[in-house]
């Protein structure tokens, strides 16, 4: 049923990436990337390092500029100079590999900042919302802790709460578990799985193929700046179409 809903939603996709290319000087990092992501879809982006995965999702919220092609999020052109990027970014949550919590603020203040300053919520409302999000990620007791006093897994859960605090329509995850000790990976993945279960539209750059098998609807495989494969989860894992993806999968699943 959920799948049917998602298929229908492709008539009016949440994210449209159309023929996007990007270069740093003479280094081509994205080559003619195109894909569409429907409302409620969970898409895992994988591929070897340097393949352009992180760059691609940072283009989606305008953190990385791109030279050609277009990206729209809920119909709004990301690359247009007329687009109010801060306003658009409030609708797109992002979680980073190294958490990027503000070190001079407590967990609670980290989650409150953009609510108060960008979304213009009252402090009382922002605090209430922040505490309920902390509770949701299992860290209500850590509201007054500084990031330095939290474990990696705890920091990443606070970072997820910070992104969710703006009630985004889309969540982007840039290798959210690759900087974590193995025993902390599942506490972060659990939060993400729950989020996927609630119907959040998610684009997740990750090497966690277990997560992909469990919650992804689609898998995008990138290599050398190209989207080499863009397939539903089952066919991708059963038999990837490209040699490059087969090789990558065998390496990553071998250990």
């Amino acid at each position, binding site marked *: 049923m959920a799948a049917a809903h998602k298929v229908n939603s492709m008539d009016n996709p949440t994210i449209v990436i159309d023929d996007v290319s990007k270069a740093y000087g003479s280094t081509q990092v994205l080559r003619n990337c195109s894909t569409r992501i429907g409302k409620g879809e969970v898409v895992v982006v994988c591929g070897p390092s340097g393949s352009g995965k992180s760059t691609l999702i940072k283009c989606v919220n305008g*953190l990385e500029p791109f030279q050609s092609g277009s990206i729209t999020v809920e119909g709004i052109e990301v690359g247009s100079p007329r687009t109010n990027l801060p306003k658009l970014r409030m609708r*797109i949550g*992002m979680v980073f590999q190294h958490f*990027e919590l*503000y070190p*001079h603020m407590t967990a609670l203040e980290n989650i409150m*900042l953009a609510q108060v*300053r*960008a979304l213009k919520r009252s402090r009382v409302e922002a605090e209430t919302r922040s505490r309920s999000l902390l509770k949701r990620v299992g860290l209500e007791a850590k509201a007054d802790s500084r990031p330095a006093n939290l474990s990696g897994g705890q920091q990443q859960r606070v970072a997820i709460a910070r*992104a969710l605090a703006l009630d985004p329509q889309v969540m982007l995850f840039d290798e959210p578990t690759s900087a974590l000790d193995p025993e902390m990976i599942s506490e972060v993945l659990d939060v993400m799985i729950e989020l996927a279960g609630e119907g959040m539209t998610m684009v997740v750059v990750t090497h966690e193929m277990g997560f992909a098998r469990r919650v992804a609807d689609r898998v995008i495989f990138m290599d050398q700046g190209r989207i080499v494969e863009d397939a539903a989860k089952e066919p991708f894992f059963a038999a990837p179409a490209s040699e490059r993806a087969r090789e990558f999968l065998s390496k990553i699943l071998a250990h």
Partner: protein
Amino acid sequence: MPEVILKNLPFMLQGLATSLQISAMVAFGGTLLGLVVAVILYSRVPVLSAVSRIYIEFIRGTPLLVVLFIAFFGLPALFGYQTTAYKATVVAFILFIGAYLAEDIRSGLMTVKPTLTQAALATGLTHGQALRFVVVPIAVRRIIPTLFNQYVRLFKFTSVASVIGVSEFTGNAMLVNAREFQPVTILAFVALTYLVICLILSGIGRWLYARLAVN
């Protein structure tokens, strides 16, 4: 305490009060100026960053006393306004220390990872808000020891202001010496007083750094 000091203490302390007052104003004004210039350079604001660069290089290549003379004699003559030795001192010292503070603050801003700014922008904060609430507070906390090093420097600079007639601590003490002629005792008192105040300032810096520093 030697009698010559006790007898002239009120006059000398009056000078010390002036020195401290100038220092406080210059520390505040200079930090503000340094912050503005540092943010302009860090954000690569067109035109303004070129102006900032010229300002910093000019100050670094000019002796403090010359900057003081420019503020007291040069600028009023050039632009036809009246000033006082006190005002000229405050202006000159703010301009002087501001250039050094700008470089210190800029180097602090550079220590903040670009990805942290990206994280702030990703939540919908504007560039200005990301600077104000995230980058600047982190940078300033990291350079507290450097800031206080500059505050110690500028407190000692105030002794130069007597040259244009400001009744600050050193100048007043030297007036006392001209009357009493007990240079060893008076200079020992003066030097010791500067030392104690500088130690207190450094102590405050260390205390603040221990409380506020972030990794």
